[in-house]
């Protein structure tokens, strides 16, 4: 009843509907994403601790240290806000804001699972655009710009190096990543993420294993995680682009990395691991797509942490070489493969 009334209103007044639904969904999603990203920071520290045979956070909030992040937040909020005197102030101030705001742009077009109502699958996505895969990829790459803003405006040599590295890394992997998205879309005959998920009767990770590997590497690079975190490489350039940031401004930049890690993992699950597809679980069929989606997401997140603790950091020249000289030609091969399979075996 209520649902049909809403759909009718949406059809009659799409602009007002868009405004209202956008505002409501943005407020809800912003809070959920922030909480999940906090949990993710905790999960990473805890899992890293386990991998490295130590405890991880274990003091604040009982044995598991679940309140550690709350304590960290209190510390960041009560710390003095220092703006270095050499900094380019407007750009320096805006960099963390741009960083967090653009992650929300990605969240708006990304489906967060699906629910089954009356045997019909309803994806939970705010802006279900025809080109959402393209849009998400474009919005993800704005991240490099906020990192460059932060590094350049700090007027610190280490930050500057980190910023330049960030852009070089981004442009080296943007092209293979884009071609991987295209290869997926070629097989699914659509650029809409929802339709890409629905087209995966066979996971695209199995249909094009090469593309999966290339996309996973490009994604880790885009997220700036080990072994591709040359932008902040503590041992070489102090903390890279966020050397001059402290207190809440640092907190925002740090936090944004985890939000993007979450969103990037969701994108990987949708494009290659069949999204929320999975056999319907009988009794709780209503949320069975959600269960599959979250299981896949957690596995991807833990895998990302696993990669981080297992591999040492590459040199920056090795990173650009890998992107331009190996992944770019290989992604072309993968595209040819996708076209052949998409034409003759689909």
């Amino acid at each position: 009843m209520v649902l049909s009334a809403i759909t009718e209103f949406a059809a009659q007044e799409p602009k007002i509907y868009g405004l209202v639904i956008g505002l409501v969904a943005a407020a809800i999603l912003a809070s959920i994403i922030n909480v999940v990203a906090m949990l993710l920071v905790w999960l990473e520290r805890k899992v890293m601790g386990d991998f490295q045979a130590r405890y991880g956070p274990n003091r604040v909030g009982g044995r598991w240290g679940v309140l550690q992040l709350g304590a960290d937040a209190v510390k960041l909020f009560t710390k003095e806000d220092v703006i270095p005197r050499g900094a380019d102030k407007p750009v320096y101030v805006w960099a963390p804001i741009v960083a967090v705001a653009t992650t929300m742009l990605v969240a708006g077009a990304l489906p967060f699972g699906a629910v089954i109502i009356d045997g019909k699958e309803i994806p939970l996505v705010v802006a279900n655009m025809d080109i959402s895969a393209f849009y998400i990829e474009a919005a993800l790459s704005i991240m490099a710009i906020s990192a460059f803003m932060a590094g350049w405006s700090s007027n610190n040599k280490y930050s500057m190096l980190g910023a330049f590295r960030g852009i070089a890394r981004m442009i080296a992997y943007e092209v293979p990543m884009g071609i991987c998205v295209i290869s997926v879309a070629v097989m699914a005959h659509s650029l809409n993420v929802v339709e890409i998920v629905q087209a995966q009767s066979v996971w695209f990770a199995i249909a094009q294993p090469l593309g999966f590997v290339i996309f996973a590497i490009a994604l880790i690079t885009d997220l700036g995680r080990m072994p591709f975190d040359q932008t902040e490489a503590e041992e070489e350039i102090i903390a890279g682009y966020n050397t001059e940031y402290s207190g809440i401004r640092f907190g925002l930049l740090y936090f944004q990395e985890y939000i993007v890690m979450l969103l990037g993992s969701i994108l990987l699950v949708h494009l290659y691991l069949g999204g929320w597809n999975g056999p319907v679980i009988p009794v709780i069929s209503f949320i069975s797509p959600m269960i599959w989606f979250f299981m896949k997401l957690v596995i991807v997140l833990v895998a990302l942490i696993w990669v981080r603790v297992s591999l040492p950091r590459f040199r920056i020249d090795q990173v650009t070489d890998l992107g331009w000289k190996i992944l770019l030609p290989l992604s072309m091969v993968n595209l040819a493969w996708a076209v052949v399979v998409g034409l003759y075996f689909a």
Partner: protein
Amino acid sequence: MSGEMMAVDYYIPLIMFLIVGALVPIGALAAVKIISPQKSTLQKRSTYEGGLRPIREAIIQYNVQYYLFAIAFVIFDVEVLFLYPWIYVYASDAIPAVGGVSIAITGMLIFIVVLLIGLLYDIKKEALRWV
């Protein structure tokens, strides 16, 4: 406005997302302004440089090699942009076929091969070497 959702309508919720996304960090910064101490000194606000006084500005001209990456990137990014609309037509029957293969595919193949030759030339000339 009634009836079909227009393409532009999809972007209205996204604008709301951008606004909410900007309000979160702005709110956090405002909260910090209120609750955190403000005792700024000249020493505290100096630029970090391993314990020394910073020498000269950090905002510099970078090695020219760096811009070659950017140029190569622009070329290949435009190629990727051409590929996006191509997804919708490559399997279409409306496009004539020569020798059993659609022109859309042969055309794109030629385009990609030409660009790959360019990439090989770049690599051979060491334009894509980080220095």
